[in-house]
């Protein structure tokens, strides 16, 4: 599946998008744990999980949301438009 990062998550990770295999990942929380294990850049991005929001296929979801069938998962801070 495609994983997207916005705002300071994008800056800390150093990528705006990447492909991640969903194999063995059941929920968003599983994906976050998988990403954090990749190294310090991901660890820094997800160090305060309560400050990170997630969208699955462009709909805001909770961290326990299932990934089954998901094509796109995006991580970002709380929205600050307007």
């Amino acid at each position, binding site marked *: 599946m495609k994983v*997207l990062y*916005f*705002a*300071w998550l994008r800056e800390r990770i150093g990528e705006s998008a990447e492909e991640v295999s969903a194999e063995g990942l059941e929920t968003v929380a599983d994906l976050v744990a998988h990403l954090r294990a990749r190294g310090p850049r991901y660890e820094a991005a997800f160090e305060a999980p309560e400050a990170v929001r997630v*969208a699955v296929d*462009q709909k805001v979801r909770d961290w326990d949301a299932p990934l089954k069938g998901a094509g796109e998962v*995006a991580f*970002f801070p*709380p929205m600050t*438009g307007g």
Partner: protein
Amino acid sequence: MAVRVQREDFDLGAETAALEAGAGAVVTFTGIVRGGDVSAMTLEHYPGMTEAALAEIEAEARTRWPLSGATIIHRVGRLLPGERIMMVAAASAHRQAAFEAAEFLMDYLKTRAPFWKKEETGAGARWVDARETDESAARRWAAKG
């Protein structure tokens, strides 16, 4: 009904006038980059989700108030103090619906549309933090069902 995300500026007068036909009241809100210690602001968004979220917010407003028209325009990219960031407009037969719908569009946009602001200041650049007051402003509409 119109929802647009764009780099370029917009013509507030033309956008307002376009909503006048069939309306008794048009209420608009314009957001502008504040000066002070901020020398520039960059707006990032989530292409695709942004447009869908704005369309959903507008559709929700139409279920709550009898609107003859509504417009949401939000700019992205780097903007300088004094530049317009975004606008919402709501048109209805009477002013109360137009005022309320415009406020609803703003409150929902601030907390449910995927935009992020980064400010440049003399001390460096910083991402703007979400404000709890914005979230509580949006929640009061949910309480009204």
